[in-house]
């Protein structure tokens, strides 16, 4: 993944380290999820994933995640050839546990975020982002 100047700035201010996940291209989303959660089943609530319903440009789709109290948030684009997008790790000095980035989506798909909470539990949030060929709004 690539961080823009602004996003890097935000991350820096928050005392956050962002780590790209250079998994092999063929690695399945399941592997990334299992590696992150250790096999635990995520619940819901406490994590907000903000993404557009329809991408204006599938090559650069702005998304943000926010999970107060989380220690890490994993983001996956489930329909991409390489689903893992990023894992945001939040240190104790982080002023907030949120991050924004832009991701590339190959086609209409679900974006999945999983947050590891302070108590070791996991929560998830999903959002379908449509990548369209363009239409004719009235």
């Amino acid at each position: 993944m690539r961080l823009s100047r602004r996003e890097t700035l935000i991350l820096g201010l928050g005392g956050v380290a962002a780590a790209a996940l250079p998994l092999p291209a063929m690695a399945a989303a399941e592997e990334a999820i299992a590696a992150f959660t250790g096999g635990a089943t995520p619940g819901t609530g406490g994590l907000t994933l903000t993404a557009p319903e329809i991408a204006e440009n599938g090559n650069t789709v702005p998304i943000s995640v926010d999970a107060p109290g989380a220690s890490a948030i994993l983001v996956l684009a489930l329909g991409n050839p390489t689903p893992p997008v990023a894992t945001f790790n939040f240190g104790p000095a982080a002023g907030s546990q949120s991050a924004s980035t832009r991701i590339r989506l190959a086609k209409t798909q679900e974006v999945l975020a999983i947050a590891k909470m302070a108590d070791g539990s996991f929560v998830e949030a999903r959002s379908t982002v449509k990548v369209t060929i363009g239409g004719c709004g009235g």
Partner: protein
Amino acid sequence: MISRREFWQAGMAASAIVGASGLGNWGRLAAQQALTQDQLLAFEDFGNVTLIHITDIHAQMRPVWFREPSINLGVGEVKGLPPHVTGAEFLKTFGIEPGSTMAYALTSDDFQALARGYGRMGGMDRVSTVVKAIRAARPEALLLDGGDTWHGSLTALKSQGQDVVDVMNALGVEAMTSHWEWTLGTERVMEIVDSLPFPFLGANIFDVEWDEPAFEPYKMFERGGVKIAVIGQAFPYLPIANPKWMFPEYSFGIREERMQEVVDEVRAAGADLVVCLSHNGFDVDRKMAGRVQGIDVILTGHTHDAIPEPVLVGDTILIASGSNGKFVSRVDLDVRDGRMMGFRTRLIPIFSDVIEADPEITAVIEAGRAPYRDEAEEVIGTTESLLYRRGNFNGTWDDLICDAVRSERDAQIALSPGVRWGPTLLPGEDITREDILGVTAMTYGQCYRTEMTGADLKLILEDVADNLFNTDPYYQQGGDMVRVGGLSYRIDISQEIGKRIDQLTLTDTGAAIDPATSYTVAGWASVNEGTEGPQIWEVIEDHVRKLGTVRRDPAETVTVTGL
């Protein structure tokens, strides 16, 4: 145009036709003999705040015929709910008598006969008379424009929206939001915005580079001791449905969480009443109303629905004021102790033969029109058929346009965008250049010719169908189905994307469309930069000149299932 005095006589003359159809009731026409401006404006003042809403004018400064859709299907949770009711069902839902003035204004049944009886609707000089009458009763009434204002006519295209801007400024609009305005391009939009005596609102317009708010999200008004926050919401899917290369600096989107933030912000700033001036489209607004807390009134726009009563979602009322100047909504509210305690609304039909024109605005309209009058009024042909656009799948205007595109561009298949603007012509009328531009005027009207495989065609139809029939309104873009010429298909609107469209055939031969075969396809309004071809209105003009007289029955090339 018939004069005001002739309103009734024309109604009588039309009654024979209505009677013959077996649907109308000319006794109802007779009941309208006494229809007056005073009756149209009658309103018992209520509460302490008045909003006046106009939207989707589409640059129609003068009265027009505008036939409402006979097919306007809803899916999922909104199936069968307004605005997804038409014809007799619509009349029944709202207790409107067949053949009455409101039946004419709001539905398509007996349109031809009723149109001849009741006359054209709209005209911004008539709208002005209504606005002034409301202001006479309520001097602090707030006039709000929901956008799609600076686009849709020959004069607006030629003057880059200036003729409309001048009229709206003279009318005293106090805030607006936007959609087609952006197809004038960023530079022109900013030039106009800088000149406006009122704010151009868009809480959901963001800067592409920094993903930060780029326009004023709201304006706080103080009227009669009430603090009113008007939040603007521009059309969310501008960079997708329209050419984003014309306004590359901006990003839009529904941005529900942003709307909630702004509502919270204005409430914290002391707003007693929160109004959202929206160009989301009705179903999107209905969903948003149920998810964003704290909006009292959504003045909806974009999908051109005219609904005679407010639709309630929780404590929020939704007002749908139609399009093309046909209606003005008056919304009276009782706001006390920082709360909306009650409302009284009226969708006022602008019968142009009944409501007097405001000469001050007529003069502004004519001044804007003068440089283009001769060009606009040139007669290109005549029509023996009713030419209309609205409907989910086709209309005779687009059937004619597809005929023109196929014939003039020598293509097997024509595609025409499913936009919802464009007035109607009655049988027997001349077709002027202005009439043709009324259904086509745009800044990207090039009529392209290309080759597409059968698989491409299916993909396009599926994609557009999902913009219309996705069961989640947030994925709907608010247009109608792309119109096709030379191509027949079946659509099951209850399916999901990829599974709605089948039985694609070439209409002329009945041959099945083969996914791997290439077909010649011509169309217009491509969102791609650098599209080449003659302007669509020139293509239509050439075709109509050759025909001389247009006769076009509605196409029967689309089979709809899953209702």
